[in-house]
């Protein structure tokens, strides 16, 4: 075929015109044949997505795993609201950032409230922090876990760690023997606990002073800092450190499942928040306030409530975690002894009783500044 310059220009013009029309045409099409999930690792695995794809043939399902809550939230803020249909983050980020800023929308209560009844006792009430202040259901809880600190029980016994609690990290004997897993928002909460302050209440000047001194002491005594849980577990297993500040079943489970049962997440027996010293995280999976959202988003949310899918989410890859659906005896049967041991099922109940849900830290900005400066030194 011979093409002269004029014909070529015509073709290019037509192609450009079509390309310009393309996205516009797509924006008005119903998106019931596709769905995109932004999530922590697990929901993006074949074990979870495979069965969904089978149950909903013809629906293109994509999932991307984020490396932190704020990373994922940044994506929505930066204009990807039109891309994602579901987002899976920890409860405070959903309640404090996503919902107030209209980045997620409430769920249909009639459809989802019945699922709470079959969940573990902590969630069946239903779980209050799955709701916004105004009462809307903003996400479904699934994975959760106590989150305080982790020790090597060959070096520090579980009893000692639980009794001593957060003051373990201020013990002169521990200097140079622990690491800090730098999940900043968690560190701030845990440093408050170590300083004997309730992080969820306004902190006065005396409290700020205590927080500053404690933060300095914890960083000065730390042998290493890392935001990588694998690096922390490796250092713990090879004896480089004997404990790490900020960690829980989420971080200890991969090492335990690999046979390192001496790595154990610890929940202190006492602490400054109404006598409690432990913290617990709970993920909420919420529907993104996508102007052209896929109706399959709520279908997926319902789909992952099923026993075998909940199990797949619990033991996906990377980390292993208890899920709220384990409250159903039929579902619970799907976990074997080794798996239950990895997620410390033996002590999970008592650990949860000693833990508080993490929520708004009123002085977060001020405390984070002190934390950041202390970390630098």
């Amino acid at each position, binding site marked *: 075929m011979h093409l002269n310059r004029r014909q070529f220009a015509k073709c290019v013009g037509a192609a450009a015109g079509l390309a310009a029309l393309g996205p516009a045409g797509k924006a008005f099409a119903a998106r019931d044949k596709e769905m995109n999930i932004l999530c922590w690792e697990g929901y993006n695995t074949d074990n979870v997505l495979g069965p969904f794809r089978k149950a909903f043939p013809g629906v293109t399902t994509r999932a991307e795993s984020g490396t*932190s809550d*704020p*990373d994922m*939230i*940044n994506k929505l*803020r930066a204009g990807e609201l039109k891309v994602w249909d579901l987002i899976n983050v920890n409860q405070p980020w959903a309640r404090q*950032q996503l919902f107030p800023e209209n980045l997620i929308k409430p769920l249909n209560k009639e459809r989802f409230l019945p699922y709470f009844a079959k969940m573990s006792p902590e969630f069946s009430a239903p779980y209050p922090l799955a709701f916004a202040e105004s009462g809307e259901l903003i996400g479904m809880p699934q994975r959760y876990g106590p989150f305080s600190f982790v020790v090597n029980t060959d070096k520090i016994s579980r009893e000692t760690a639980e009794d001593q609690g957060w003051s373990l990290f201020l013990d002169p004997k521990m200097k140079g023997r622990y*690491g800090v897993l*730098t*999940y*900043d*928002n968690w560190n701030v909460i845990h440093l408050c606990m170590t300083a004997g302050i309730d992080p969820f209440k306004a902190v006065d000047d005396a409290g700020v002073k205590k927080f500053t001194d404690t933060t300095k002491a914890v960083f000065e005594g730390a*042998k*290493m*800092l*890392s*935001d*990588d849980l694998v*690096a922390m577990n*490796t*250092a713990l297993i*090879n*004896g*480089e450190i004997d404990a790490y500040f900020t960690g829980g079943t989420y971080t200890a489970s991969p090492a335990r499942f690999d046979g390192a049962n001496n790595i154990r997440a610890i929940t202190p027996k006492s602490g400054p928040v109404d006598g409690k010293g432990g913290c617990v995280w709970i993920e909420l999976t919420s529907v993104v306030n996508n102007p052209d959202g896929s109706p399959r988003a709520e279908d997926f949310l319902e789909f992952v409530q099923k026993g075998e899918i909940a199990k797949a989410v619990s033991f996906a890859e990377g980390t292993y975690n208890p899920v709220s659906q384990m409250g159903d005896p039929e579902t619970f049967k799907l976990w074997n002894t080794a798996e239950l041991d990895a997620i410390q099922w033996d002590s999970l109940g008592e650990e949860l009783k000693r833990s508080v849900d993490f929520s708004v830290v009123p002085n977060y900005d001020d405390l*984070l*500044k002190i934390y*950041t*400066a202390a*970390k*630098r030194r």
Partner: protein
Amino acid sequence: MERINQRLGALSALPVVLFLAAGFLAPLIVVAAFSMMPQKVFSLANLPDFSSYAIMVKEGYWESLLVSLAMALAATLILFVICWPLAFAMAKVFGRFTLVLTIGVVMTLFVSENIRLFGWVLTLMKGGLIEGYWRTWTGQSFDGLLYNVPVIIFGLVYVYLPFMLFPLAQGISMVPDDARQAAFDLGANRWQIFREVELPLAAPGIMVGCLITFVLTAGAIAESKLLGGRAVIVISDEIERAFTYGQNWPLGSALAVTLIGVVGTLAIFGVSRIDLDAIMGRRR
């Protein structure tokens, strides 16, 4: 005729200029604009107050910048000393073996930086390759070699070696053998030849190698995170933290703009002093 040609030239360059403006300049402008915004806003529709720059000075973020620049300088100097003999051999001695060496060095770039660094973690950690063998053979144990500043600089040197090596080899290949031989004949010793013949003639290569490694190492983050256990906090770490856990885009942008400013000034200063045409082998 000349004016028409010029106009046509400008017109033909227009698409590329627009593409560059949209793809390269626009993001930088957005970052610069965000850096002037009030704290913790997520939109540019606010009145600028430049508070992030004040915070940067008041709250010690400049310390991280200094740490990054100092480590970048150290890594660049070490790289220069290590790479010079190797680059010299590649340009003047090895002959065909240079190709093998080049492929060998380039091959390392095919493996992700994080994986290569994690390999070093496994080597240097307590119970790793070095300490593990030492303990088995001698019965004595010592702490791992990780989590300190020297190991971060080692990581920088290791990762950025190719970026110094190749420009340096290119620079050295520009030194005519005749000039060196003439200097020998006139009685110059080895040191004089290095200082007065090779260094000045290879200067463009040295400058390019030093600039590239300095700019890259100043913005490096993985070495301090993986090998250093954050023994010091580098500026890129602060930028990342401000954008994520801090949820403070203006502060992160201000830190980024400052880093770009400092490194950019150094780069422009360096580039203005070398003859890029010469290193590309073109005559003016």
